[in-house]
C-alpha cells in the first residue's frame, strides 16, 4: 500500500491498471485451474456414462438375442410336443439337468442330446433345454416338493447362454407342457353281442364276453331278470320251497303262503301263517295295521334280525335276546338261509332251520329268502380299444351314463397293454385287481390312475353291475366313456 501510495501521484492510472492486471491475472489462473478440475470431473463422468451406456447397450443386445432364442426354443418344443406328446416326453432323462436341443430333419424337428450353437447378429450362443417331471398335490396344484407324479405334465426349461467380457451369462424360460388333448372311447350300445376281442379303433356295438348281463336292443346293460324300477307290489321274496319255521306247540309257520313277507336290508314286512293265526312281522303291514304300539322285525343290513313279531293268540315273539342270560337270535346267511331261534313266552322256541335242531334228513325244513348280504352281480368285458398312438396314450377318466337305483352299484376295472393281445390285468384305483373304479353315480367322472396305465396303446374295461341287497333292482348302463389323451 505504501509503494502504491508513493506512485500514485506520478502515474496513478498506470499503477492502478498494473495492479488490476496482476490481480485479475491471478484470479484467471485460479479460475482456469478450477475450470480444468471441474471440466475433468465432468468429462470423466461423461466418459463413464458413455462407457456404461455402451456396455449396457452391448449387454442388452446379447440379452435380447438370448431371450429371443430361449423363447423361440420354448415355442419350438411346445409345437414339437403338441404334434406328438412322446416327442418330448420320451426324452431319456427328466432330471432337469440333461441338455437337449432340436434339430431339423426332413420337415420337422428331431430331439437331440446336448446343446446347439446358434449365431445371431449379437454373437454366438449356446442353446438347449431340459425336461423335468412335475408333481401335484391333492388339489392339483403344482408343487416342488412332495406331491404325486403327474405323468401328463412336464416342465421345460429353455436356456440361451453366451460369454461377455470373459463372464458367462444366460437367459432361461420355463414352460409346463400338458397332455390335455381330449379323445374318448364311447360305447353306447352292446346289442351287437359278444365274441369281439378286437383291437378296434372305432367303438361299435359289440363286446368280448359277459356274465348275467342283458344287453337289450335299446343299447343298455342291466342285470338279467331284475328291474330298474322298484316294485310297488308286496310280492314275497321268500323261497317257494324253503318257507317253513317250526314250533313244537303250534307246528309249522309258513312265510310264503300269505305272499307278502318281504325281507329287506332294514326290515321284514308282511305276516306269516300259522296254526294260531297270522304272525305279524311289522305293525304297518300286519293283517290289521295298527302301529299304536310300534313293533317290527328289523334287519341290521348284515342279516342279523332283531325286534318283535305279534300274534293275537300267543302274543310277542322275540327275534333276538335282550338279556345276557339267554343268547338267542335269528340270522340270515349270505345265501339267504335263516338260522337260529325266536322265542315266545307261551309256546316257546321257533326254529328256522333244521340244521339247528339236527333233524335235517328226517325233516328238512328252513326259511330262505332272496335277500342276503350279497348282491347279484353281472359283468361285461369290452373289446380291446386301440388308441393308434405309437408309444401309447394317457387314460384320463371313466364315467357312465344311465340309472342307478338306490342300493345298486356300477363299478369298473381297467386293463391296458402295449400289446394288442395283452396280457390283460383288470385293476382298480390302486392298481391292483382287488379294487375298482366306482363312480358315485351316473355322469360322474372318475380319474383313472394315469401312472398305472400310462403310455399303453390298448385299453379295455370290465364293468360290474350289482343289484341291491333285496335283489330286486338293477342299475342300467346306457353309456360308458373312457377319456384319454394321445
Amino acid at each position: 500500500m505504501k509503494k502504491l501510495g508513493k506512485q500514485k501521484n506520478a502515474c496513478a492510472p498506470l499503477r492502478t491498471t498494473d495492479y488490476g492486471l496482476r490481480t485479475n491475472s491471478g484470479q484467471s489462473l485460479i479460475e482456469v485451474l478450477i475450470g480444468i478440475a471441474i471440466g475433468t470431473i465432468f468429462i470423466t463422468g461423461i466418459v463413464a456414462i458413455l462407457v456404461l451406456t455402451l456396455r449396457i447397450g452391448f449387454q442388452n443386445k446379447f440379452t435380447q438375442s438370448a431371450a429371443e432364442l430361449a423363447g423361440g426354443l420354448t415355442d419350438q418344443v411346445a409345437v414339437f410336443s403338441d404334434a406328438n406328446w412322446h416327442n418330448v416326453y420320451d426324452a431319456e432323462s427328466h432330471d432337469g439337468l440333461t441338455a437337449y436341443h432340436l434339430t431339423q430333419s426332413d420337415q420337422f424337428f428331431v430331439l437331440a442330446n446336448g446343446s446347439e450353437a446358434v449365431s445371431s447378429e449379437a454373437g454366438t450362443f449356446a442353446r438347449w433345454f431340459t425336461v423335468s417331471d412335475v408333481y401335484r398335490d391333492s388339489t392339483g396344484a403344482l408343487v416342488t416338493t412332495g406331491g404325486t407324479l403327474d405323468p401328463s405334465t412336464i416342465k421345460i426349461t429353455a436356456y440361451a447362454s453366451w460369454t461377455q467380457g470373459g463372464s458367462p451369462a444366460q437367459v432361461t424360460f420355463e414352460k409346463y407342457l400338458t397332455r390335455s388333448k381330449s379323445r374318448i372311447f364311447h360305447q353306447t350300445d352292446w346289442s351287437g353281442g359278444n365274441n369281439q376281442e378286437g383291437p378296434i379303433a372305432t367303438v361299435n356295438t359289440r363286446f368280448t364276453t359277459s356274465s348275467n348281463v342283458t344287453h337289450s336292443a335299446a343299447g343298455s346293460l342291466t342285470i338279467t331278470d331284475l328291474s330298474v324300477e322298484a316294485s310297488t307290489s308286496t310280492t314275497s321274496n321268500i323261497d317257494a320251497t324253503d318257507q317253513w319255521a317250526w314250533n313244537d306247540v303250534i307246528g309249522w309257520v309258513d312265510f310264503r303262503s300269505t305272499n307278502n313277507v318281504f325281507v329287506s336290508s332294514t326290515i321284514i314286512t308282511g305276516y306269516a301263517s300259522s296254526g294260531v293265526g297270522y304272525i305279524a312281522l311289522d305293525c304297518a303291514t300286519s293283517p290289521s295295521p295298527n302301529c299304536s304300539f310300534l313293533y317290527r322285525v328289523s334287519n341290521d343290513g348284515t342279516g342279523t334280525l332283531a325286534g318283535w313279531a305279534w300274534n293275537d293268540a300267543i302274543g310277542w315273539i322275540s327275534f333276538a335276546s335282550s338279556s345276557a342270560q339267554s343268547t338267542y337270535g335269528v340270522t340270515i346267511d349270505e345265501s339267504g338261509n335263516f338260522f337260529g331261534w325266536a322265542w315266545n313266552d307261551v309256546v316257546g322256541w321257533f326254529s328256522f332251520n333244521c340244521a339247528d335242531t339236527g333233524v335235517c334228513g328226517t325233516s328238512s325244513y328252513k326259511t330262505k329268502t332272496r335277500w342276503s348280504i350279497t348282491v347279484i352281480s353281472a359283468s361285461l368285458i369290452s373289446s380291446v380299444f386301440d388308441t393308434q398312438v405309437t408309444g401309447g396314450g394317457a387314460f384320463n377318466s371313466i364315467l357312465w351314463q344311465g340309472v342307478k337305483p338306490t342300493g345298486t352299484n356300477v363299478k369298473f376295472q381297467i386293463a391296458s397293454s402295449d400289446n394288442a393281445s395283452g396280457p390283460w390285468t383288470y385293476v382298480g384305483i390302486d392298481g391292483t385287481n382287488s379294487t375298482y373304479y366306482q363312480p358315485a353315480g351316473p355322469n360322474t367322472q372318475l380319474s383313472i390312475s394315469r401312472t398305472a396305465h400310462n403310455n399303453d396303446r390298448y385299453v379295455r374295461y370290465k364293468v360290474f353291475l350289482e343289484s341291491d341287497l333285496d335283489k330286486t333292482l338293477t342299475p342300467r348302463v346306457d353309456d360308458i366313456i373312457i377319456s384319454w389323451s394321445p
Partner: protein
Amino acid sequence: MRQLLTTNYSLRTKRGIASLPAILLFGSILIEIGIAGAFLVYYLNNSVYGTRLTNEAIVIAQTGIDDALLRIVLDKTCPNATCLAEYTLTIGRGTASVTICKDTCAGVGKDQITVIGRALTKQRQLIAIVSVDATTGLVTVDSLQDSAL
C-alpha cells in the same frame, strides 16, 4: 482517464468472470447430455427388458391355459368343490392367475379360461373358450386369444 481506468478495470473484471460461467455452462451441457444419455439407456434397457418380460408373461399365460385344460379334461364339471374356479400357478419368477368360468361366461356348454401371466412388472392375458360335452366330457378348444388387460 478515470473513466478509462474504470472501463479497463471493468473489462478485465468481466473477462475474469466470463471464463467460470463458460465452464459451468459447458459443464451443464455435459451433465445434461449425460442425464439424457442415462435416461436413454434407462428407457432402452427398460424396453429391451420389458420385451423379454412380456414374452415370459405370454409363456406363463400359455402354461396356465394348458393346466386349466388338463383339469377340465379330467373333470368335465370343473369348476366345482374339488376343482377350483380360481387358482395361481408359480412358474419360474412369474405367476399365472387362472380363472375358469363354466356355462355363464361363454355360453352353456362352454368354459372360458382366463389367464393373466405375470413376469415381474409385465403381464399378459390369454382367454381360451372350450366346448365341453356334457355327456362324454369331450373337450374341444374353440378359440385362444391374446386379450388386452
